[in-house]
C-alpha cells in the first residue's frame, strides 16, 4: 500500500487530530500573513477561519514532507483575495498588484521584523499603566474601542488616538532597541 492510499484510509478522527495539531501550530503565522493584506483584526480572523475550512477540505492533498505553513499561506492568500473582491474599499487599497507585492515584500523583510519585534515584550513592559491597560484591552481582551472608551471615561475619538500613539511609542521603542543592539554588536 502506498503512503498515499494509506492516508486516505486513515481514520477521519485521526486525520482531524493531525490537521488540528498542524493548524494550531501555524495559526498565528497564517493570521499575520493575512493581516498584512487586511490588518483589521476581526476581518483577518474571518479570513483565517475561511482558510481553515478550505485547508481541511484539501487536507488530503497536503504532502506531509512539505512544511505546513507555506502550504496554508497559499490558501490564505486565495481566501483573502476572494474576501477583498467583495469589498470595494479593500479593493481600492490592494488592487493593481499591491496585495501580492506586500505579501512578497513581507517575506523578504521577515528576519528584520523578527529582530525588531523580539524587543516588543520589553517595550510593552515599559508602558505606563494606563497605556498598558488600553493596549491590553484592545489587543488581548479584544474589547471594542467604544467599550474601552466607556471603561476609561475617554471619548471614542480620544481612545482611538491614544491607541495610535501607543503603537507609535512601541514602534519607536523596538526600533531604538534594535539600533542600539546593532551599534554595540
Amino acid at each position: 500500500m502506498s503512503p498515499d492510499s494509506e492516508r486516505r484510509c486513515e481514520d477521519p478522527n485521526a486525520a482531524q487530530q493531525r490537521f488540528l495539531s498542524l493548524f494550531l501550530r501555524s495559526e498565528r503565522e497564517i493570521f499575520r500573513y493575512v493581516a498584512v493584506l487586511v490588518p483589521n483584526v476581526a476581518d483577518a480572523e474571518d479570513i483565517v477561519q475561511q482558510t481553515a475550512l478550505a485547508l481541511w477540505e484539501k487536507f488530503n492533498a497536503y504532502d506531509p514532507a512539505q512544511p505546513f505553513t507555506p502550504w496554508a499561506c497559499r490558501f490564505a492568500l486565495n481566501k483573502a483575495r476572494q474576501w477583498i473582491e467583495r469589498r470595494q474599499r479593500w479593493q481600492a487599497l490592494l488592487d493593481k498588484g499591491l496585495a501580492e507585492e506586500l505579501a512578497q515584500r513581507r517575506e523578504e523583510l521577515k528576519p528584520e521584523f523578527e529582530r525588531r519585534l523580539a524587543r516588543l515584550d520589553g517595550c510593552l513592559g515599559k508602558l505606563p499603566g494606563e497605556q498598558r491597560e488600553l493596549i491590553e484591552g484592545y489587543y488581548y481582551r479584544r474589547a471594542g474601542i467604544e467599550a474601552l472608551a466607556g471603561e476609561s471615561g475617554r471619548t471614542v475619538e480620544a481612545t482611538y488616538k491614544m491607541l495610535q500613539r501607543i503603537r507609535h511609542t512601541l514602534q519607536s521603542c523596538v526600533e531604538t532597541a534594535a539600533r542600539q543592539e546593532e551599534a554595540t554588536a
Partner: protein
Amino acid sequence: MKIDFPSREFDEAVAAVCHGLGSSEQMRALNELLRANAAARDEYLFRAELHSRLASEPDLFARENESKVTPENILPLRSARRPRRVTWALALAACIALLATGWWVAQVSLSSGRKGATSKAVAMLDRVVDAEWNQRDEAPRLGAPLEPGWLRLKSGLVQIVFYSGARVVLEGPAELQLISPDEAVCLSGRLVAEVPPQAKGFRVRTPLMNVTDLGTVFGVEVKQRQTELHVFKGSVEFQSPAGAAKQSLLEGRGAIAGGANAPRLIPANPAGFASLFDLQNKSSEAEVLRHEQWRAASGRLDEDPSLLVHFDFEQTDLTDWRLPNTSKRKDAAPDATIVGCQWTEGRWPDKRALEFRGVSDRVRLSVPGEYESLTLAAWVRVQGLDRQFNSLFMSDGFEAGTLHWLIRKDGVLGLTVINSGPGDVQIVASLSVLALDEFGVWAHLAVVLDGDGKRVTHYVNGVLVGEKTLKINRLFRIGATELGNWNASGAPDNDPSLIRNFSGAMDEFCLFSRALSAEEIHALFSVGKPQPDPLIQTRN
C-alpha cells in the same frame, strides 16, 4: 486625495486601515503611495506587523500577576474576551467533510463567530428529531441561539423558539429565514406556529401571503405555486403581498393562495400537520432512547480496569448524601460525599444531575494511589463563570503531584499540575472554549495528563482544544479532592481568587488511571451526547 510620506495623513491612513475604518478615498490614496514609494511600503508593512503581532501573541500579555499568591494567577485573565473563532470553524469543517464521506461523526457543540454578550440572536433551536440540514456553512446545533439568517432543513423536524415566545415547528424540506424575534419568512416547507399572548403579532411571510398572528396556533404549507394557511386555534390575519386587503381567518378555517385569483377559503386540516404536532412525542422517545443507550454504555465502562472513579449521578434516593462510585475496580476510590448542591434534570429529562450554585456546594472524595497518567472527563452544563477560577475537579490546597482542573472566567479550560508546591506548577490552558452561548448547554469536557507521552491535552465534545508538552516528570496523585469547589487548605483566606465554586450542573464524572486516546475521548462523548445530532443524522 494624495498622501505623502512621511506625513500625518500617512499615519492616519495606516491607523484607519488597522482598525478597518479607512475611507475609500484614503485607501485608494494609500494604494497609490505604497505602489510608488518603497520606503512607505516597508513602513506600512512594519506597522501592520506590529499591530498583528499584538493581536496574535497573547503571551505578550500573559506575564502579569506573577507575584500573586496562587499559581493560577499566572494565567492571563481575559474577562470580556471574544471567543476564539478559528477552532470552531475547524471542528465544523471536520463535520462537513466527514458528512461528505458518509462518516458518522458527532457534531461539535461549539459556536462559531458569535460574540458572547453581543449576540444578535433572535431565536433558539429547541428540539430536533432526525434533522438533516442543507446548510452550506454552519449547521445549527441543539440549544444554540440562532441569529437572523436562513435555516435550510433537508428532512426531519425541528422546533425553533423565537425570543418573542413564538414556537415554530418546521418540517423539512423547508427554507425558513429568521428575520427578528417576531418575524420569519418561509420560502418552502411546512410549519406550525404556536403563538402565546405575549408574542401576539408574530408574522410569517411567504411568497404568496403574509400571515400575522392574533394569538393562535396556525399551520402554513408553502409549495412551489401555492401557499396554504390553516388556523387551528384563535385567529390570524393574512394578506397577499400584492397589497390586497387584510383578511382575518378564524379557528377551523383555512385559505389557499395561488395563481392570480384571490385566496380560496377551505376548512382547516389538522391531519395534514399531524407529524408536526407529534414532535413532542417523537423527541421525548428519542431522549429516552439516548438515555438507555448511554446507560448500557455506562455499565460497560464500569468494567474498565483503569476506571478509578465513575459517578453516573443515577441514584434513586435523593436524600442520600453519598454519591456512589460505580467503578467495578476492586481498589477503586470510596463513595463521595455531597455537600449542599441540588438535584436537577440532567442531559435527558429522566436523568439526574447535581447542581452547584452556592459557595459551599461541593462533592468531596478521596482517591488513593500514585499514577503516571490520568484522564478526567465530565458532562457539565455551565451556568455562568462567576469566579476567576471555577473548579471542575481540584485537589485540596497545592499538594505536590496533585491537579486542579478548572474553567477560567474567560472560558479557558485549565489544568494545573503541581510539582513540588504552590510556586512550582505547570499550567496548561486550552483555547477559550466556553462563551456565553455555551452556557446552559450540556458539554463534555476532558483532560488527559499523559506522563509517558509527556503531554497534556484538553478536549471539548471530543475535539482537541489545547495541547502542551508536560514538563513535570513525576508520579501524580489526587488525594483529598472536590468536584465543583476547592478547599484552599492553608492558603491565605482573604484572597477572592481562592473562592472557586463552580456554577452549573454535572451529570457524569470519570477518572481513569491512564491516558485515554483522542479516539477514546471522542467515544465517551459520542455515547453520552444528549441528542442525536442536529447536523448529521445518526446511522441506524
